[in-house]
């Protein structure tokens, strides 16, 4: 017996998001350099979070029979906060790499700290 269509949609979205989270974790563990590793978790915070949020919206909307959009707020909060924290962490890491005398990072511009 086939499950109802919305359960197939929810299951596909959830499994895709789980796969993305695992890929993000693998990237975080396996990439060789810190600035390359910074890219990996963005998979989970962007597309992974979008897929889970869509799954909850589909699930609660079909259960209640009306559009349940409040979970959207999670995506909005993540979209505002993730770039800010990534930017600040990258600046801090750049500063620390320069302090440690790492030749791989570019030097600071004149007049800038």
């Amino acid at each position, binding site marked *: 017996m086939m499950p109802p269509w919305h359960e197939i949609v929810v299951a596909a979205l959830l499994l895709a998001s789980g796969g993305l*989270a695992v890929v993000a974790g693998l990237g975080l563990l396996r990439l060789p350099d810190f600035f390359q590793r910074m890219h990996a978790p963005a998979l989970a915070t962007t597309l992974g979070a979008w897929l889970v949020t869509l*799954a909850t919206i589909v699930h609660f909307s079909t259960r209640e029979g009306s559009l349940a959009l409040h979970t959207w707020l999670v995506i909005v909060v993540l979209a505002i906060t993730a770039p*800010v924290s990534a930017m600040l962490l990258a600046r801090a890491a750049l500063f620390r790499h320069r302090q440690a005398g790492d030749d791989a990072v570019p030097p600071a511009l004149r007049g800038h700290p």
Partner: protein
Amino acid sequence: MSPFLSVAITATLLLYLAAMALGLVRLLRGPRAQDRVLAQDFLYTVGLLLMLVLSIRYDSEMYYEGALLMALFGFVGTLAMAKFLLRGEAIE
């Protein structure tokens, strides 16, 4: 909750646990402080996704509010850590 959706949710939770284990290895291994902060931020994010999946699993809106709080607290924590790494002071 049909058996089909229940199996899919369990598989998703296991995938999230695997991702969190990978992040935990990075958190413990380092090698430097910024790697640990990055891994902590990743663990917060996957924990948030896990809470959203649990809200489907238990048909409850409470988990959604927990996920929202985790997003905010994870952001504040990462911000404070990055500021500390940059200046040696979280609040100047």
